[in-house]
């Protein structure tokens, strides 16, 4: 049975990745996951300069979901390269770095720095994080904005370039087509839906930033719809995510047209879930007499 998939020149042993911001730098999960059984790990959003992120509280639980407003807290690209990369570059899976920025120059600078790293075969460009006022929302919500940043990064980055799309748009297909046009090797979706939670008794918003990003099973129907729309409209691989908690959920995304999937919020509920999803996809293929993971298509 062959579960391997390819995105640009990035070869994954199976289609299961962990989503940025939910899996730290991988090492946090070393007690729970055998990395050699994952397709890859998308590590935390990295910006050119260190960021302290948003004030606490950053999290609210919602029906079958959660809101977060972390705000891209990270120690910056230099720190990542000097102190984190050496500790994770030999993990037995593919390491993809999620890149965020507040200007095209920032994105380009980080992409250039990461291009030098032998053991980082791909980046995921976050043009959609809704948490940070200058964190990229402006780029991700129009085809023009998305094109500008992808064009610049494409010129600066030689390896596999994945662009992570925002669901907070009227027409996600137009954004996906725009980034494909500029040479993205793949798109990943969906980033979080912009939401809000209120404490009725205390009469105030729960998050320090008022609004935050919604993830978890609650968003799965929206994510599946967008993956299905985008997969029909572009020729590059689509990485699907949004509320995946089980192999069945993952298979639904593959059926919708995704080439691979990312597991996010579910890592908080079951820290071993990513490995279980990979195993479960193999079980599904066996049950359906499938040879290759690309056989998981609609009938």
């Amino acid at each position: 049975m062959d579960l391997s998939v390819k995105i640009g020149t990035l070869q994954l042993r199976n289609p299961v990745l962990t989503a940025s911001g939910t899996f730290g730098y991988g090492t946090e999960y070393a007690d729970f996951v055998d990395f050699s059984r994952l397709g890859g790990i998308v590590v935390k959003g990295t910006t050119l300069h260190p960021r302290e992120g948003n004030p606490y509280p950053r999290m609210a639980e919602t029906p079958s979901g959660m809101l977060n407003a972390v705000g891209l807290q990270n120690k910056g690209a230099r720190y990542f390269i000097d102190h984190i990369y050496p500790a994770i570059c030999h993990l037995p899976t593919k390491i993809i770095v999620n890149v965020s920025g507040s200007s095209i120059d920032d994105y380009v600078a980080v992409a250039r720095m990461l291009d030098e790293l032998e053991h980082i075969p791909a980046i995921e460009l976050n043009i959609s994080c809704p948490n940070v006022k200058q964190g990229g929302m402006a780029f991700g919500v129009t085809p023009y904005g998305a094109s500008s940043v992808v064009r610049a990064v494409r010129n600066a980055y030689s390896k596999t370039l994945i662009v992570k799309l925002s669901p907070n748009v009227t027409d996600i297909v137009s954004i996906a087509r725009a980034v494909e046009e500029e040479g993205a090797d793949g798109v990943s979706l969906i980033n979080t839906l912009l939401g809000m939670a209120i404490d009725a008794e205390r009469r105030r918003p729960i998050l320090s930033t008022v609004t935050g990003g919604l993830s978890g099973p609650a968003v799965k129907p929206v994510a599946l719809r967008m993956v299905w729309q985008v997969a029909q409209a572009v020729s590059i691989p689509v990485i699907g995510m949004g509320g995946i908690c089980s192999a069945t959920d993952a298979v639904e995304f593959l059926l919708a047209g995704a080439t691979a999937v990312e597991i996010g919020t579910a890592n908080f509920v079951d820290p071993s879930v990513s490995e279980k999803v990979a195993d479960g996809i193999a079980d599904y293929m066996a049950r359906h007499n499938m040879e290759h993971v690309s056989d998981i298509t609609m009938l």
Partner: protein
Amino acid sequence: MKVLDLIVKESCAVSATSVRMVLTAHDTLPDMQPGQFVELRIDDTPGVLLRRPISIHDYDKESNTLALLVQRVGKGTAWLCSRQAGDVVNAVLPLGNGFTLPSEGAPCSPLLIGGGVGVAPLLFLGRELCRRGIVPTFLLGARTSKELLCKDLFESVGTVYVTTEVGDEGVKGFVTHHPVLSEGDFNAVYVCGPKPMMQAVVTMARAGEVWCEVSLENRMACGIGACLCCVEDTLSGNVCVCKEGPVFNIDRLKWT
């Protein structure tokens, strides 16, 4: 850290809204330190997704058991409080860094201050101090005597002083009103409880230049330092309470 199915050995109400659970496991429980916590999966509860962090109330290696105090504040803790002997609760454990214990033989006169369900980790801490030949003094605060949790257990480990807000047991008022604070000669203070209470204690500890650790309860998602949701704004920036805490020396905090 492990993911384990814990089996409830017993579960007793210790107040109108709190339950004390003793749990075991088929496997040997990993070693735990006072101040560490567990993240419990909430099953059978519509809409609840995330695990609930609960500090370790007691741990006995010999009997392979741990104890938890759970206060019913929402749907997740309500489910936990309704577990009966024989039921299974899935846990990730142990998590975080515990209280700093005095080194062997060092002179130590510790005061352990707890408020509400925040008394929980102090029992386990008191036992560990005892094991090192140090008799702990507890100062436990509650709204009323009925909400004072597990006083007898604390009395079996050390000296216990009490404050209640309504004054139906011990000194009337908050823990910071208790005379033992000024009369006792403590060189270490450990605190866990509601934030305003901890802040008041920290203010006094700083004024008296007493070594002090607090256990924070920021709202968490992952419990292992991956999601960066539960951060405390410290002198070294935003740090994860779940991973760098939940216990912090007050020298690291920006609390004023």
